[in-house]
């Protein structure tokens, strides 16, 4: 902390008085007026300069300030080869439906708004809608389906952060909607990608500490640092190794005793759940019955298949009815591999495969053994394969250890909250409940391993807004998609706790909470909020 000139004079006077008890330093004394005051002028400048340059002081003052992105902390971090992450912008596709064929041109930055959440997205590049089947550069094709016309635009969130991740089917309005005279509706085409908020000063300082302490893979901290630095969006991990009850992979031998040297690394590499689509060829196995296989590299380590639709009808909502997938595993030819003993070991890893049988009455009817293209949509965690490859690479691997990277076991959450307003005139808009939804989204999706989901914390978030009270109880529901293919449903009004069910691979060290804005059932986004807020 800097000193005033008077502080410096007093400090020097105290020093002289304590060391030379017979020297007068009071006001009007020659010692004070001719010596101490002059000396203090020099001391004060030097003292304050040193204080300002002090790194510790700089961090303290930066953290004590109101801003969470002080350039001073950035400069200090650069001394440790550490840079602040500016966050990741959510990206996605918006499908615009028109009542008549029209060719519109959009400038980059053309804005769309998700009205119930108040989230804004903008067009990433200049785009023109083309009526031709082979659009040129900067053009998108206009499709016709069911008497309507649609085209798809790439958009990016207005700000970096996780709150902008919306589900497939979420509706939008165009900010300048009058331009599209034949506009019918706009909706998210597939789930939007995950986003990350820019790192705060506290996070950056923590990153410096981590970088100083851990850079190798011997510890969970070291793995975390490497993943965090290498994979944008990486969130957290849990390592289950020797002597951990969760480590059952090492006990799958004749004697059933643990063979050391194995560790399972459960990772969360995105804030919210992400969805990917892959086109697959299915084979007709019987009347109205089709089957397809997902290879290990189709949607690596995916969580749950959400939707299967014929490729020719990709604008359809919903999904074909499919049976629970049969999971398996396969290795990559010519690559170093982990030790896998069962499909449960391989679940959510880069080795996971699945076979899915579903019902589809095609028109015209095709003979058995015919093949056809389908779209498969599944939720997943990004970079599972890359993380595993890093741990297996010559450069990084521990030769005596077998680290298996798994996407964290997901517990999908939905909430119903009843808010009581203070004034009859209050509305969801006036209370900014859109932001409350984002707060809850961020809270649930950033809970750490071992954390419980407390209704009281959600109530606390609600009370950051100008409401009278929150009606209790709050109904919280969680569905855990277990590695063995089964599911566990949790319901509570007070606290949701991840149970310990080792036989299913579910414990607080392997499982994390996920919440999406909208509920997806039978492959279609339902008009039901996962974060259900009712204002009465």
């Amino acid at each position, binding site marked *: 902390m800097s000193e005033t*000139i008077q502080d410096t*004079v007093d400090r020097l006077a105290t020093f002289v008085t304590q060391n030379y*008890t*017979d*020297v*007068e*330093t*009071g*006001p*009007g*004394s*020659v*010692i004070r*007026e001719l010596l101490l*005051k002059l000396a*203090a*002028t020099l001391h*004060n400048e030097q003292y304050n300069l040193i204080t300002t340059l002090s790194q510790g002081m700089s961090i303290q003052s930066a953290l004590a300030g109101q801003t969470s992105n002080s350039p001073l902390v950035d400069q200090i971090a650069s001394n440790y080869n550490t840079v602040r992450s500016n966050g990741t912008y959510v990206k996605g596709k918006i499908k615009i439906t028109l009542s008549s064929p029209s060719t519109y041109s959009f400038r980059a930055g053309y804005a769309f708004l998700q009205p119930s959440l108040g989230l804004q997205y903008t067009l990433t590049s200049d785009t023109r809608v083309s009526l031709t089947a082979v659009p040129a550069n900067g053009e998108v094709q206009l499709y016709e389906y069911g008497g309507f016309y649609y085209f798809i635009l790439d958009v990016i969130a207005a700000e970096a952060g996780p709150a902008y991740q919306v589900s497939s089917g979420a509706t939008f309005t165009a900010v300048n909607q009058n331009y599209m005279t034949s506009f019918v509706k706009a909706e998210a085409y597939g789930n939007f990608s995950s986003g990350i908020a820019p790192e705060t000063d506290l996070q950056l300082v923590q990153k410096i500490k981590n970088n100083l302490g851990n850079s190798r893979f011997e510890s969970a901290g070291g793995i975390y640092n490497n993943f965090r630095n290498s994979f944008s969006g990486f969130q957290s991990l849990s390592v289950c190794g020797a002597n951990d009850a969760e480590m059952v992979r090492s006990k799958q031998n004749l004697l059933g005793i643990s063979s050391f040297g194995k560790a399972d690394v459960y990772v969360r590499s995105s804030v919210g759940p992400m969805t990917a689509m892959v086109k697959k060829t299915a084979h007709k196995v019987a009347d109205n019955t089709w089957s397809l296989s997902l290879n290990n590299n189709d949607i690596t380590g995916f969580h749950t298949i959400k939707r299967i639709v014929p490729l020719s009808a990709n604008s359809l909502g919903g999904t074909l009815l499919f049976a629970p997938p049969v999971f398996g595993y396969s290795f990559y030819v010519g690559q170093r591999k982990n030790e896998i003993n069962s499909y449960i070991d391989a679940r959510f890893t880069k080795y996971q495969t699945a076979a899915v049988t579903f019902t589809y009455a095609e028109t015209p009817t095709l003979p058995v053994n015919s093949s056809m293209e389908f779209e498969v949509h599944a939720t997943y965690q990004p970079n599972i394969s890359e993380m595993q490859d890093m741990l297996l690479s010559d450069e990084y691997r521990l030769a005596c250890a077998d680290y298996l990277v798994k996407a964290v076991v997901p517990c999908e959450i939905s909430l119903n909250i009843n808010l009581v307003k203070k004034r009859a005139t209050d509305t969801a808009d006036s209370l900014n409940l859109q932001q409350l939804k984002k707060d809850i989204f961020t809270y649930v999706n950033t809970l750490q391993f071992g954390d419980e989901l407390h209704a009281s914390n959600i109530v606390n978030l609600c009370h950051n807004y100008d409401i009278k009270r929150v009606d209790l109880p709050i109904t919280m529901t969680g569905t855990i998609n277990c590695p063995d293919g089964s599911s566990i449903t949790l319901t509570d009004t007070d606290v949701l706790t991840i149970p310990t069910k080792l036989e299913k691979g579910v414990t607080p060290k392997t499982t994390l909470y996920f919440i999406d804005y909208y509920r997806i059932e039978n492959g279609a986004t339902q008009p039901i909020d996962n974060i259900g807020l009712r204002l009465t």
Partner: protein
Amino acid sequence: MAVSLVSSNYTGRKRDLSVFHSPDASLATTQSIGISFGAPSQFCAGVQKLVQAYAIILLTNLMSQPNYPEFGTSFLYTMQSGVSPVDTLAASQIFSLASYDAVSALRTYQATNYDTPADERIVRATLTNIVLSAGSALFEVTIVAESGDTIPFLVPLPK
């Protein structure tokens, strides 16, 4: 009159450097006490130190010390701005206001420094005589210390 016993025992006292050439108390002749360089340094304590501190504060112009603008009084600056040689009332008012500030500064310090000897603790300063003439002014002041000492002295004004 010469003083036969001059003590230089400063035990229990804080010493300051004397900026005035103190008169040799053992001599009964006229001596210069003006400020000048080259003479051997001397310590001072007791009432002499008190008078010196009072004079330094009184004669330092406000804002004349960089970084310490509130130290001093407006006495010298106002006098140098010009006072009628016949207006002793104005001169005494100027002095009284400045003297009040100087005494206050010393008493504020004394209030928190309890170990100051009684003869170094100022009670008041009174203007006992004033002589104005063209180009010069003479202020005769009496300082009263808590010990009961009354110290008359002339404020050394520069020409």
